[in-house]
C-alpha cells in the first residue's frame, strides 16, 4: 500500500518511559528525574502536555490535601473517609501512602506558582470542605507541565500509544510501547527498561445524556479514552474493581462542579417542591446497604441513589438552591470561578438559559457512568503496595508495580485507591517514578529485549484502519455507509449503546443483571471482531480508532467484573437487579480479572480487602 511504503519508523530508547502527560505522568517525570539524575526519561502524550489530561481545562480546587502542618487531618483519617465513600472496599495501604505524601506535593505546587486561596483569618489554605482547598486553578496544568518539561529528557507530544511491548525472553515483563504520531503518521517504537502507564480513565464508555454535538459535554473529558486500562490489561496485568464505575451529580447539561457551592457556600439541594429528601430516604437506603447507610459523610453513590429515587417518584427536577447563598460579591465570585476555572460550559448554559444563580436555583442531574481510578471510584490495575506498611499479600515487588514486571502505574491506572484527584495522582506518579528508578538501577545488565516480530505485527495492526478505508471506500459512491467498514464514531456509538442498555447506563436507570450482562458480552464480542474492520479516513481518525479500541477492551472488563460481583455494592452507581442488596458476607472483597492474550480467556477471582486502619 502506498500509505505503508512511505511510513517513517522512529525508535526511542529510554530507561523509563512514561505514557500519558496528565498529573500522574508529570509527577512520574519529576520524581524519576530527581532520583535518576543520569537516566533517560521519556514522556509521551497523545495531545500536548501544556493542556492535556483531565485537568487540561483547569480546576477550582485541590481535593486531596491533609494540612498536617496545621494538624488539620492525618493520613489515617483520609483512609477512613475514602473507605467510607467506596462502601468499604479500597486498598488502604495505597491510599495511606498517597495521603502521607500529598501535602509535600501541594506545597511544591504553591512554590511553583499555583495560586492557593487563603483564609483571611487563619492564613491557612482556604478549605472548601474537610479535604479540599480552593485554588485559582485556570493554569494548574500549564504550571505542572512546566515542571514536567524541565524533568523529562524528551517529551513527545501528539503520539498515540496503542500497545505495550513485551520482553522477548520473559513474557511477563514489559519492554516498551508502540504508537504513532497523529500529525505525520510516523510509527514509533519506544524501547524501555521500565514503563509507567499514567494514561487516563474512560469517558464515552456509556452513552452520554447529551446528543449530537453536545456529546462532547461529558463530565469527564472526551479525550479520556480508557487507555490506562486498554494498555495494561491486554499486557496481562491483573485488574480490580472494574465494575466500580462512577456516576456524578452535577449541574444539569453543563456538568459544572457543585463542590464549592455545596461545601463552601452551603447551598442546599432539594426536590422540585423544596424538600430536603436525603434524610427522608435513610430507612430505605439502610434496607439496601445496612450499616453503610450510616457512613458520614454519606457516600457519593448513596446520595445519587436518593436523588434517583426522587426523580423516579416524579419529584424532579432536583435543584441546588444557589440563590439563597449568594449574598455578597465575594461569594458570587467564588461560585462563578468554580465554573470558569474548570467547566466554562456551565457558564455558557447559564448565560444561554438566562439562569443567574443569584436569582434562581439551578438544576442538578446524575451523569452517565465513567470508568476511572482517581475520583470517587477505584477501577484499575492491582499494584504492589508500599514496602513499610502494605500487607504481605499486597506486595510482590516495587511500589506501584503491576503484576507485569517493570510495568508501573499512576493515577487512573492504579486500582483500589480512590479519591486521588489531581494532587493525589501527581503524588502517585511521584511514588511510581521513584520506584521505577530503583527498579531500573537494580536491573543491572538484565535488560528486556523487544521482539522484532511482535513489533512488525503491531505495525500492520495499527495502520490497518487506513487500509480498510482506502479499500472499502472504493466500493461506494459517497457518504458514510459502506458494507466493509465502519467509522470509529460508528463503532463508538455501538459501544455506548451496548453499555448503556446492558451494563447499567442511564437508559435503564443504571440497572443491569446477569442475563443483561451476558447479552452485553455477546454483542460486545461481535463489536470486538468488527474492530478489525474500522475504516479511518485519515490519521486523526486513526487516533479515534485506537481510542475506540481501548474503550472496547475496557468495557469488556467492566462487563465481566459487573457480572462477577453478585451484589449491589454501590446503589446510585449501578444496580444488579437480580442481587439488589449489598452482601458483605460474600462480597467484602475486590473483584479481579486477568486477561490471557494467548488463550483469549479472562480469569476472574476475588482478592481480600485488608483493613490496616481501624
Amino acid at each position: 500500500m502506498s500509505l505503508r511504503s512511505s511510513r517513517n519508523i522512529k525508535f526511542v530508547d529510554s530507561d523509563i518511559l512514561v505514557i500519558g502527560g496528565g498529573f500522574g505522568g508529570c509527577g512520574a517525570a519529576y520524581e524519576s528525574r530527581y532520583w535518576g539524575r543520569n537516566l533517560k526519561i521519556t514522556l509521551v502524550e497523545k495531545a500536548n502536555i501544556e493542556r492535556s489530561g483531565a485537568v487540561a481545562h483547569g480546576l477550582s480546587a485541590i481535593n486531596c490535601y491533609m494540612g498536617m502542618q496545621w494538624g488539620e487531618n492525618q493520613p489515617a483519617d483520609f483512609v477512613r473517609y475514602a473507605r467510607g465513600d467506596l462502601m468499604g472496599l479500597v486498598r488502604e495501604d495505597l491510599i495511606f501512602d498517597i495521603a502521607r505524601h500529598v501535602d509535600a506535593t501541594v506545597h511544591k505546587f504553591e512554590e511553583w506558582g499555583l495560586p492557593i486561596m487563603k483564609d483571611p483569618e487563619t492564613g491557612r489554605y482556604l478549605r472548601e470542605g474537610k479535604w479540599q482547598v480552593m485554588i485559582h486553578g485556570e493554569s494548574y496544568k500549564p504550571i505542572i507541565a512546566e515542571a514536567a518539561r524541565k524533568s523529562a529528557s524528551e517529551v513527545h507530544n501528539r503520539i498515540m500509544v496503542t500497545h505495550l511491548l513485551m520482553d522477548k525472553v520473559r513474557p511477563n515483563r514489559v519492554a516498551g510501547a508502540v504508537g504513532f504520531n497523529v500529525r505525520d503518521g510516523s510509527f514509533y517504537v519506544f524501547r524501555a527498561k521500565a514503563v509507567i502507564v499514567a494514561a487516563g480513565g474512560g469517558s464515552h464508555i456509556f452513552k452520554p445524556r447529551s446528543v449530537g454535538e453536545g456529546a462532547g459535554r461529558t463530565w469527564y473529558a472526551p479525550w479520556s479514552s480508557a487507555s490506562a486500562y486498554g494498555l495494561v490489561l491486554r499486557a496481562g496485568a491483573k485488574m480490580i474493581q472494574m465494575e466500580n464505575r462512577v456516576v456524578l451529580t452535577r449541574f444539569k447539561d453543563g456538568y459544572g462542579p457543585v463542590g464549592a457551592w455545596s461545601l463552601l457556600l452551603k447551598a442546599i439541594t432539594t426536590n422540585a417542591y423544596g424538600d430536603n429528601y436525603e434524610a427522608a430516604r435513610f430507612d430505605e437506603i439502610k434496607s439496601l446497604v445496612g450499616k453503610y447507610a450510616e457512613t458520614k459523610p454519606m457516600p457519593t453513590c448513596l446520595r445519587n441513589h436518593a436523588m434517583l429515587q426522587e426523580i423516579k417518584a416524579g419529584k424532579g427536577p432536583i435543584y441546588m438552591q444557589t440563590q439563597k447563598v449568594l449574598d455578597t460579591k465575594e461569594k458570587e465570585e467564588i461560585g462563578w470561578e468554580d465554573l470558569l476555572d474548570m467547566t466554562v460550559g456551565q457558564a455558557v448554559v447559564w448565560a444561554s438559559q438566562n439562569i443567574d444563580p443569584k436569582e434562581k436555583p439551578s438544576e442538578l442531574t446524575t451523569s452517565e457512568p465513567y470508568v476511572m481510578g482517581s475520583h470517587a471510584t477505584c477501577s484499575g490495575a492491582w499494584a504492589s503496595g508500599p514496602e513499610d506498611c502494605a500487607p504481605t499479600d499486597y506486595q510482590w515487588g516495587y511500589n506501584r508495580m503491576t503484576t507485569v514486571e517493570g510495568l508501573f502505574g499512576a493515577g487512573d491506572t492504579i486500582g483500589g485507591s480512590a479519591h486521588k484527584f489531581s494532587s493525589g495522582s501527581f503524588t502517585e506518579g511521584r511514588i511510581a517514578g521513584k520506584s521505577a528508578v530503583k527498579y531500573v538501577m537494580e536491573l543491572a545488565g538484565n535488560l528486556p529485549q523487544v521482539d522484532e516480530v511482535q513489533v512488525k505485527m503491531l505495525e500492520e495492526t495499527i495502520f490497518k484502519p487506513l487500509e480498510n478505508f482506502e479499500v472499502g471506500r472504493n466500493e461506494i459512491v459517497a457518504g458514510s455507509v459502506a458494507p466493509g467498514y465502519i467509522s470509529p464514531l460508528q463503532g463508538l456509538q455501538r459501544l455506548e449503546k451496548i453499555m448503556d442498555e446492558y451494563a447499567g447506563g442511564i437508559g435503564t436507570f443504571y440497572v443491569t443483571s446477569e442475563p443483561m450482562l451476558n447479552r452485553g458480552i455477546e454483542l460486545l464480542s461481535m463489536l470486538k471482531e468488527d474492530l478489525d474492520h474500522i475504516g479511518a479516513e485519515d490519521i486523526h481518525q486513526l487516533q479515534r480508532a485506537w481510542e475506540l479500541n481501548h474503550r472496547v477492551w475496557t468495557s469488556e472488563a467492566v462487563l465481566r467484573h459487573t457480572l462477577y460481583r453478585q451484589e449491589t455494592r454501590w446503589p446510585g452507581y449501578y444496580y444488579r437487579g437480580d442481587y439488589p442488596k449489598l452482601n458483605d458476607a460474600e462480597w467484602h472483597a475486590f473483584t479481579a480479572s486477568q486477561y490471557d492474550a494467548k488463550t483469549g480467556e479472562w480469569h476472574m477471582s476475588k482478592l481480600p480487602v485488608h483493613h490496616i486502619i481501624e
Partner: protein
Amino acid sequence: MPTFTYMTRCDGCGECVDICPSDIMHIDPVYRRSYNIEPNFCWECYSCVKACPQHAIDVRGYADFAPLGHSVRVLREEASGTISWKIRYRDGRVKEFTFPIRTTPWGSIKPPTEYAAPDANALNSQLLAHEPAALGVENLPTLPVLGKKEV
C-alpha cells in the same frame, strides 16, 4: 458549546491546532484557517480560545441544550498573571470577572536537577523528593506495626 473560528479574524497560525487536547482544531486546506472538525468531541475547555493570538475562536453553546444569543469571552494574560471573563446572557445581562492564574514568572520553576543529588541509600527509604522538609511536619507518617492487621 463547540468552538468555531471567525473567517475574518483567523490568520491560520495554528496555535489552536497545537494546543487542542482533543485534536479537533484543524486547518482547512482551502481557506488556510482553522476550524473545529469534530464538535461532538469538543469539551469546551477553551484551550484554543485562550491560545488564539487573534481572538478568532469563539464558542456557541451545544445546540442540543443551549439556546442562542449568549457569549462567554475570555482574555488570558500570562504577563500580568490574570484571566478575565465577560459573560453575556441571552437576555443581554453582562457579568465580568477577573481571577489570578499564577503567582510566579512563567518559566521560573526550579527543575529537580538543581537540587542536591539525594544520598544513594535514600532510594530505599519511603521518602520522596524534598521530604520530610516539604511535608511541613517533622516525619513522614507511617503505620504502627500493630495496625498491620489482616482480616
